[in-house]
């Protein structure tokens, strides 16, 4: 089987696609202001016409490359290319100012690779086991897991949970557009037969993320008149070697573990993981006082932590078909576009596709290391690309990509409509990830809700009388509203303490 996986995954075509994805990911990730979600959304348009394995390799390459690419601008121009590299700035930029930009970039690269590979190995061994457990659960539990996924997405909205909930409900509502699966009646189609098959998630995401990003970018470019290149610290060649990194083995191991655990939890992500790992590294380091002033260990912890989520985020996506964040939601959208339904059946069907994907992630991390070592100077120059050039380029890519998704100009109209929706949502602080995750999860959500209610004869008590289902629902609520619950508990404690003092 291993031979089969290798022969399918490592064809020349797939290897080239992986490397193309990594390059695109690093390039987009290294441009300040463009998020990793944006990178994966734009690259998604190129997966049209590819077979599912190559398409996934392209997206995974972009994901892994973009995660590392964000560190380049963090180190060289003190601006994280993506939010995942926010913690890399703390020590990366001071190192660059000290004339050690090359060392910081090399440390980021090696740590990213180690974190990514660790996570990919965990995915490879853990996902099949999780899939076996998933086979045992019924519709009510699946519905509860969908609720968990949705609430996890809402929890990323921070203090805007109410708006997050509205956004999620809107996403789920939009997923109902088209023909009803059971009765075949038209739903929210406004008489347009082109909506019969429903809204294409990929087009919606391209509009909501990429086109929206362009509108905000245009405003920033105009107000700052940024047609000049960003000022960056001079790139100095690295003297750091792999064996120099080995002295940080404890930090690498700790950050890999933390990143993998955080990545497997829906609603978290690379930024949370990197910050957590950075703080843990500072707490445990004998050089804690040097953190923030240019400590290689700080860069190592942050970069290892953010890349260690890459494999772990795939666990709920591949085994349950539930995206943990907007990035995996896009990948899920791509799989749906290819006609592949993620879930436990991927593992039980005997197909090697899913193993080739997981093994491919491991290989992608190796290519990331190779590309980073060979082209580090070239990648360092990407952060100097002026933003003004990117605005019309992205508009053209979005429209061509939107057309390619459905092979019809109607998709371009949907893309433009979602661009406006995304702009208004961002302008008025409605989070976009719950909307897109709702769009992806909608069908699964409704199907399992329907099945559960049919099983129980229309009674919602089925969700509260089955222990596993109830446990998942309680955990979802606790997980999503943890800060609010903590506040309430603190207030109760304070009032009790006040009453006791009196």
């Amino acid at each position, binding site marked *: 089987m291993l031979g089969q996986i290798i022969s399918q995954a490592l064809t020349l075509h797939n290897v080239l696609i992986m490397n193309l994805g990594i390059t695109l990911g690093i390039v987009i990730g290294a441009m300040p202001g463009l998020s990793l979600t944006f990178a994966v959304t734009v690259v998604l348009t190129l997966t049209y016409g590819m077979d599912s394995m190559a398409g996934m390799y392209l997206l995974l390459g972009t994901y892994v490359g973009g995660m590392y690419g964000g560190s380049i601008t963090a180190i060289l121009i003190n601006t994280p290319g993506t939010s995942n590299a926010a913690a890399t700035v703390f020590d990366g930029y001071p190192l660059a100012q000290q004339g050690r930009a090359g060392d910081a970039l090399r440390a980021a690269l090696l740590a990213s690779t180690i974190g990514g590979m660790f996570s990919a190995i965990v995915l490879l061994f853990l996902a099949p086991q999780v899939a076996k457990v998933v086979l045992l659960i019924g519709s009510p539990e699946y519905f509860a897991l969908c609720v968990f996924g949705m609430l996890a997405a809402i929890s990323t909205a921070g203090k805007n949970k109410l708006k997050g909930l509205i956004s999620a409900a809107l996403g789920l509502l939009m997923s109902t557009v088209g023909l009803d699966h059971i009765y075949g*009646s038209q739903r929210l189609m406004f008489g347009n037969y082109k909506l019969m098959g429903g809204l294409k998630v990929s087009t919606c995401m391209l509009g909501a993320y990429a086109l929206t990003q362009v509108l905000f970018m245009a405003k920033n470019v105009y107000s700052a008149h940024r047609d000049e290149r960003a000022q960056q610290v001079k790139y100095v060649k690295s003297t750091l070697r792999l064996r120099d990194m080995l002295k940080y083995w404890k930090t690498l191991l700790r950050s890999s573990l933390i990143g993998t655990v955080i990545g497997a939890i829906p609603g978290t992500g690379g930024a949370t993981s990197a910050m957590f790992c950075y703080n843990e590294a500072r707490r445990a380091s004998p050089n804690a006082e040097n953190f923030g002033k240019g400590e290689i260990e700080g860069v190592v912890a942050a970069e290892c932590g953010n890349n260690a989520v890459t494999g772990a985020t795939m666990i709920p996506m591949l085994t349950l078909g539930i995206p943990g964040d907007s990035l995996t939601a896009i990948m899920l959208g791509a799989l749906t576009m290819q006609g592949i339904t993620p879930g436990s059946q991927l593992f039980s069907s005997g197909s090697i596709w899913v193993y080739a994907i997981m093994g491919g992630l491991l290989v992608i991390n190796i290519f990331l290391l190779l590309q980073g070592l060979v082209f580090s100077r070239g990648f360092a120059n990407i952060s100097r690309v002026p933003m003004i050039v990117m605005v019309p380029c992205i508009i053209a890519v979005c429209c061509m990509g939107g057309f390619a998704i459905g092979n019809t100009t109607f998709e*371009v109209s949907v893309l433009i409509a979602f661009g406006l929706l995304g702009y208004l949502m961002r302008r008025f602080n409605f989070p976009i990830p719950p909307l897109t995750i709702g769009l992806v999860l909608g069908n699964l959500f409704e199907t399992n809700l329907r099945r559960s209610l049919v099983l129980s004869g229309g009674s919602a008590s089925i969700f509260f009388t089955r222990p596993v289902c109830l446990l998942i629902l309680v955990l979802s609520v606790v997980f999503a509203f943890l800060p609010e619950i903590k506040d309430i508990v603190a207030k109760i404690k304070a009032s009790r303490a006040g009453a006791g003092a009196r």
Partner: protein
Amino acid sequence: MTKAQYRKAREELLVMLVCTALVALLMLYVIPVLIRVPAAALKDDSFTPRTFPYFLGTIMAICVLIGDVKTGVEFVRARREALACGCLKEAEPKKTLHDRITGFIPWIVYALVVLYGVGITRIGFVIPTVLMIPAVLLLLRCRKWQYYLYVYLFAGGIWVVFRYVLHVQLP
């Protein structure tokens, strides 16, 4: 309390009120009119094609009502504080023409994207792309001719990739 904070509170309230109106429209018009329930479903099934949309509409309705109350209370508090400190009578800082235009830039770019989309539908990709690029760059006050060239090269490259590598029959 500053005038900006007062304005923010007012904006939040207005946004929630607009959302309330939209949710009301959804529940009272969109779902009943745009989702037809077959007679068989009405007779035998407790889960009709409308059940899930109504379920979501109800969640949205609860959220917007809570939001109305919350933002309403915040607005009243902000107004009271703003009146007390007299900051509502403060003179507006004078906006330059540049500041005024900046606020409209996303809308102008969006209008260009819409025109681009219409152009694609009517006459295909090539001519609208050739026109869209300088329109956007001129709007953003790009003065370097090299940048125009780079964008044309990039757009041309992407067109070739879609057309000849991915075999997408772009119109």
